[in-house]
């Protein structure tokens, strides 16, 4: 019962946005809380798509998110393996300094300055590079635990079988910690996909804008177009909803961190 209430509490705003996306501006102004069952306006989506150039922005978002989250996942694995296996001195120190990153706020002004200096401002590569880091800490924490639960003898058996370091990671470790990799990737993806401050601070060229920046256009000057804003929000979040629904089972597995059956 309490669960249902909590779900409702979180679901209502979402449902409200979906409802708004189908309302005409007139209906919205007249009776914003009544579902537009008599006259739904699927045309809102087309208008929003065209008006804000959502197509290009959605492609930008997908590109930034997938590449940044993918890189973060690979790097997290490359950090987590030697840390989890204590292959070097100071593994514990590396682990704690990365894990601290989970709790630090993003220093946006220094990041902006840094981006200007390093020529990472207002270009695709820079935007991706600057979005890799936020995905790493959680990945390192999750993957270190997952890797620690894989018997060390597997490493040794593989080295005796003739596997090199990267080959071992790819052929043995990656399949065994796949749930951990998936959650690292999805978490990173979510962060880049939903970032709204990043595009405002780090990008100026509209051709480079991700979809969150596009949605932002419906604020301010076109303030009355709340229904188009809602439609754009639905477009922006639908891919994520589908992605999470599709990987739900593996995500549940990942929460049982390091559940490797030998």
């Amino acid at each position, binding site marked *: 019962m309490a669960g249902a209430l909590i779900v409702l509490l979180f679901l209502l705003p979402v449902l409200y946005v979906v409802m708004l996306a189908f309302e005409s501006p007139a209906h919205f102004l007249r009776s914003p809380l009544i579902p537009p069952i008599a006259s739904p306006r699927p045309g809102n989506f087309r208008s929003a798509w065209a008006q804000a150039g959502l197509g290009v922005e959605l492609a930008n978002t997908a590109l930034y998110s997938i590449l940044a989250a993918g890189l973060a996942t690979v790097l997290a694995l490359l950090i987590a393996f030697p840390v989890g296996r204590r292959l070097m001195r100071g593994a514990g120190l590396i682990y704690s300094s990365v894990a601290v990153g989970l709790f630090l706020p993003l220093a946006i002004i220094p990041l902006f300055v840094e981006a200007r200096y390093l020529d990472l401002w207002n270009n695709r590569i820079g935007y991706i590079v600057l979005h890799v880091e936020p995905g790493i800490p959680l990945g390192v924490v999750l993957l270190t635990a997952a890797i620690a639960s894989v018997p060390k003898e*597997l490493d040794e058996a593989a*080295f005796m079988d*003739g*596997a090199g370091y990267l080959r071992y990671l790819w052929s043995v470790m990656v*399949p*065994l910690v796949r749930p951990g990799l998936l959650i690292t990737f999805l978490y990173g993806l979510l962060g880049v996909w939903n970032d709204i401050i990043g595009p405002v601070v780090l990008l100026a060229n509209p051709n480079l804008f991700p979809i969150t920046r596009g949605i932002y256009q419906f604020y301010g000057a076109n303030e009355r177009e709340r229904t188009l804003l809602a439609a754009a929000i639905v477009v922006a979040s639908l891919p994520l909803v589908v992605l999470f629904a599709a990987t739900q089972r593996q995500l549940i597995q990942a929460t049982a961190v390091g559940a490797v059956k*030998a």
Partner: protein
Amino acid sequence: MANITLEQVSKVYPNGFKAVKEVDLDVADGEFMVLVGPSGCGKTTLLRMVAGLEDISGGTLKIGEKVVNDLGPKERDIAMVFQNYALYPHMTVGENIGFALKLRKLPKAEIQRKVKEAADILGLTEWIDRKPGQLSGGQRQRVAMGRAIVREPSVFLMDEPLSNLDAKLRVQMRAEVSRIQRRLGVATVYVTHDQVEAMTMGDRVAVMRDGVLQQCADPQTLYDHPVNIFVGAFIGSPAMNLYEAVLDDAAAGLALGSQHVTLPETVRVARPGLARLGGKQVVIGLRPEHLPAAEDAAHANVIEGDVELVEALGSELLVHFNIDATRVLAEGATDKDEVAMRGGEGVARVDPRAPVKPGSRGRFGVDTERMQFFDAGSGQAIWG
């Protein structure tokens, strides 16, 4: 195929702990060498040094004629079976066995052929598409063997490969591992803490204690002529009965508590060193089967003890008795429950028809020819 030579091989950990101390060992091509000892004696460390999984702190390790001290496991041409099998859980039996071949970039058809061949030898053909999680312990053990043999290495290393199996399967796999090893004729180093495995499987057995190689010999020599108290007590089950005894001045007999045992001329000839210890304390060792029940008094030497417990095994009786001599314990050599033995307890292995009853006074013949003598101070066997 190759032999393995260890010369003064040592392992010192960064914290200064010496796990293996100047071990000299030679494993001939095709030989089955068993390393045995109580836990923590350095046997696994020694094996891992041969494997290349641990650095060698000192000495020389040769495989064939090549010094391999600084080669990685990959370049040593060895295969290892791990205690927990270390199978790749996400690969099928076939993929597990073929992984090393795949890494060598052999053609697919050849990998398949070799994997099938190995699976046939091990009786795994019908499980070839299963994952390790779907197999029983014995089958997993066989997959681990398959992964080792498919590579046709010059040396096999096995680290307690049977210890995760139940007792019945262990006996069965013991024979099977031996059979496969003889068939392939590859030099094998096998680590175990189980002296029965060591005795039944090894061509030769190397007994280790505290990082030091105590004795390396074929199982019968080890049993009949242990070099010190530790080896005597470690090999054999039930363990050797070890007592303090005092030789008489001419070393023609000894006092075992309040009882006297006469030593025949043959014993004194075989062990001239005894003469020098006349009147001194020594440690004697008597295996349970060298203490037959002596109701007919046909034995020249008889000791008497209070029978405390009789274990009937069908083929024999294990008689636990007590005499008034002091029992000697070789530290680390015996199981914990045996350490709990007090005073002059001992075990005799007697004929099942012998009329021995708990609470009675038992008479046991002493096979003085097979009696072992050890120096009371150093624990070394007394011979010359």
